[in-house]
């Protein structure tokens, strides 16, 4: 890499001149807000074009560089061809390889990943991400400083606001204190004259809302913004009383409502009409969401929650369904149980899956009375259901974690056929957790990060800067829906609450947020990196109060639901803005980079489809 002469001032450059170029810079094309999908190696240049400075990136060649993933947390080893159904955005990206960024359009620059990664956030909130393979990001950064003023954020030492000559002027025009139309200005002046007190207050509140409560990247640039935002600190938020907590300025106060009582036998008896149909399923789900189910009613209710029986089925229809499903189960069970050892010897897929089931069944919940002791017959049931599920879903087969999902269901229902079909219902919700390429888990971890940023931005920023932004320490929580974190009775309650699909999509992610926020101070202790965070999170297992967590998660949901400042991605994760998905869908080919705002619509739809009527 040559180092051309440095110049202190951009005026010295002729009309178009390459100031500097940097080889081995990987441009990362973002999907789902993660930059692991496409990584192209190339050269980044700083170019002076008459009055403007342009950052240009050119690819070395068009082949996709799978070796250059050392900065991404996931999938260094490419074991399998990715089979994600793509929305076609990758092909779109390949046709637009060159990247040109006008420095005037850049709002913020973020340095991360041990200073090898640069993220440019543009004024339209699009993001461009580059990895510097040769670690020369500092050099590039210094070069940038000679052409533009960069101001470090008070909140995030890795974030820089880009200033230009017009920064202050622009930052005020961006405030939209006054609309650009002249009438509004005169209205404001008029209002000030007529109602000085109210007008001043409302203008200041607009200013405060904009300056303090938006996340740093969404704020307008400018020194004033930084000065004002430095006045705001989440630590300074007052706590009023035990039931109200001010957590973050972007959200309203949090109200913690006590949990309700479990759905009782009496209530359930009155919930059915003469034919046995459930009169008002939504009401029943509300009760379950608030307080769970009386244990003796679980075997019956779980069959509705897990979609074995439709809520509007009559008693007779349910008997028919069960008969039909029993036959179907027997048929699939016979498909594997009649396989001879000779057949097995030529059926590697089956043998491998069978061996995995045997290994895991033997060590699933053996301390639970239902599965305790050598030669416990319930272990055989557990194994038989998992083996039959392999026949039911060949593509998925058996993956570690599935025995954890079945175990409580079998223990509650105690019946092989019913437990199988309820497990099928649960797996329809959880299917993507077991994706070959982990894309379902990655997506959820990314969504979790989005929600955490909305609720506890300081914690999200801390994790980002401490090698933990991937949220991979929550993997176990999400994979088996906290099965390893709570005692069985709590798991039963938590799962039936989540099976109601209330109050929003991805409520389980808000449970994660509630736990993380509760542990915030411990997680942010000095010097905690990924290993300490993971250890702390793992050690929370069996040390959490489920009722408290559920109250907090519900409180957080209400705060988010009532907030008018949520980002589109936050709304989308919680399903608070359904129209957004259809808007995305109608766009033909999105830009190659759309950061958090781009979602793989086909996958999200698939996820929704896989979840039956209960869940939404």
């Amino acid at each position, binding site marked *: 890499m040559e180092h051309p002469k440095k110049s202190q001032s951009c005026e010295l450059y002729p009309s178009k001149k390459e100031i500097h170029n940097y080889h081995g810079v990987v441009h990362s094309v973002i999907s789902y807000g993660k930059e692991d999908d496409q990584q192209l190696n190339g050269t980044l240049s700083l170019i002076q074009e008459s009055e403007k400075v342009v950052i240009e990136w050119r690819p070395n060649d068009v082949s996709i560089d799978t070796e250059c993933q050392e900065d991404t947390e996931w999938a260094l*080893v490419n074991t399998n061809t990715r089979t994600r159904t793509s929305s076609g955005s990758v092909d779109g990206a390949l046709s637009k390889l060159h990247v040109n960024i006008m420095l005037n359009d850049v709002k913020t620059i973020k340095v991360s990943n041990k200073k090898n990664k640069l993220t440019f956030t543009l004024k339209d909130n699009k993001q461009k991400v580059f990895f510097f393979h040769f670690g020369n990001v500092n050099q590039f950064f210094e070069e940038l400083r000679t052409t533009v003023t960069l101001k470090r954020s008070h909140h995030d030492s890795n974030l820089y606001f880009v200033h230009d000559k017009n920064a202050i002027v622009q930052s005020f025009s961006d405030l939209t204190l006054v609309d650009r139309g002249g009438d509004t200005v005169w209205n404001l002046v008029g209002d000030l004259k007529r109602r000085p007190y109210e007008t001043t207050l409302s203008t200041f509140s607009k200013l405060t809302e904009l300056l303090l409560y938006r996340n740093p990247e969404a704020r307008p640039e400018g020194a004033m913004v930084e000065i004002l935002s430095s006045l705001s600190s989440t630590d300074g938020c007052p706590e009023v009383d035990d039931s109200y907590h001010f957590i973050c300025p972007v959200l309203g106060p949090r109200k913690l409502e006590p949990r309700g009582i479990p759905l009782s036998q009496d209530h359930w008896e009155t919930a059915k009409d003469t034919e046995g149909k459930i009169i008002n399923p939504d009401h029943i789900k509300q009760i379950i969401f608030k307080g769970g189910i009386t244990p003796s009613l679980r075997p019956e209710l779980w069959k509705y929650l897990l979609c074995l029986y439709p809520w509007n089925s009559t008693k007779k229809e349910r008997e028919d369904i069960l008969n039909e499903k029993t036959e179907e189960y027997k048929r699939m069970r016979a498909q594997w149980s009649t396989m001879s050892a000779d057949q097995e010897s030529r059926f590697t897929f089956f043998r491998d899956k069978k061996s995995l089931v045997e290994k895991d069944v033997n060590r699933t919940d053996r301390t639970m009375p239902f599965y305790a002791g050598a030669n416990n017959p319930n272990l055989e049931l557990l194994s038989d259901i998992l083996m039959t599920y392999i026949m039911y879903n060949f593509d998925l087969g058996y993956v*570690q974690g599935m025995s954890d999902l079945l175990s409580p269901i079998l223990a509650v229902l105690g019946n092989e056929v019913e437990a199988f079909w309820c497990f099928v219902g649960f797996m329809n919700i959880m299917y993507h957790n077991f994706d070959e390429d982990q894309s379902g888990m990655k997506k959820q971890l990314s969504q979790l990060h989005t929600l955490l940023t909305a609720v506890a931005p300081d914690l999200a920023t801390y994790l980002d800067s401490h090698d933990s932004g991937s949220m991979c320490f929550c993997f176990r929580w999400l994979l088996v829906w906290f099965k390893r974190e709570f005692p069985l009775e709590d798991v039963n309650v938590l799962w039936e609450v989540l099976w109601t699909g209330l109050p929003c999509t991805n409520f389980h992610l808000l449970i994660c947020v509630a736990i993380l926020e509760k542990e915030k101070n411990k997680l942010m202790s000095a010097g905690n990196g990924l290993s300490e965070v993971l250890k702390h999170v793992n050690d929370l297992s069996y040390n959490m109060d489920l009722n408290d967590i559920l109250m907090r998660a519900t409180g957080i949901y209400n705060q988010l639901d009532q907030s008018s400042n949520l980002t589109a991605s936050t709304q989308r994760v919680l399903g608070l803005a359904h129209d957004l998905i259809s808007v995305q869908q109608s766009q033909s080919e999105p830009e190659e980079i759309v950061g958090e705002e781009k979602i793989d619509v086909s996958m999200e739809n698939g996820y929704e489809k896989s979840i039956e009527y209960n869940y939404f």
Partner: protein
Amino acid sequence: MANKAGPQRPNGTAQAKICQFKLVLLGESAVGKSSLVLRFVKGQFHEYQESTIGAAFLTQTVCLDDTTVKFEIWDTAGQERYHSLAPMYYRGAQAAIVVYDVTNQDTFGRAKTWVKELQRQASPNIVIALAGNKADLANKRCVEYEEAQAYAEENGLLFMETSAKTGTNVNEIFLAIAKKLPKSETIGGSGSGQGRRLVESDTTAKTSTSCCK
């Protein structure tokens, strides 16, 4: 019995050198990775140790002459489906224990694949140990000691047959790794700061070894 020759905490002498190493356990599902760690860290054994989901992080310190070695142990999930997570855990590791089950030939094949991957993708100077676990199940043995030893020699690996159940060779394999790790380099690098804390406050070491799951 494992505790007799077991890991010791530093005796508080101010001169002790302290080194900290990241160690990762890899190997096929259900070969006993978590059980080896549980035996080494807590001196316990659970017949029906549950499968590991994601990863677990534990620490344990051992004394080696005048040096205290603190292991930061990453215990991983073994199933192939979770293979793509492994690089996240072995990245930056100075040592790895690749575990197989002596009663299962397939797991030995899988161990060889892990060794190859580490040699290709992990830190260049990583110390790799091969552990043939479940050595107490002699009557079910499928992988011969000599075969594994020859493979280990060819590839420059430390090798021991272990039993997390009886404790045989569990502390020994960690100690052998500790001996082979370059102590002088690490002292400069990963900081006497953390190390000193361990020496000054025995309770810190106690906490770090007793609260791990």
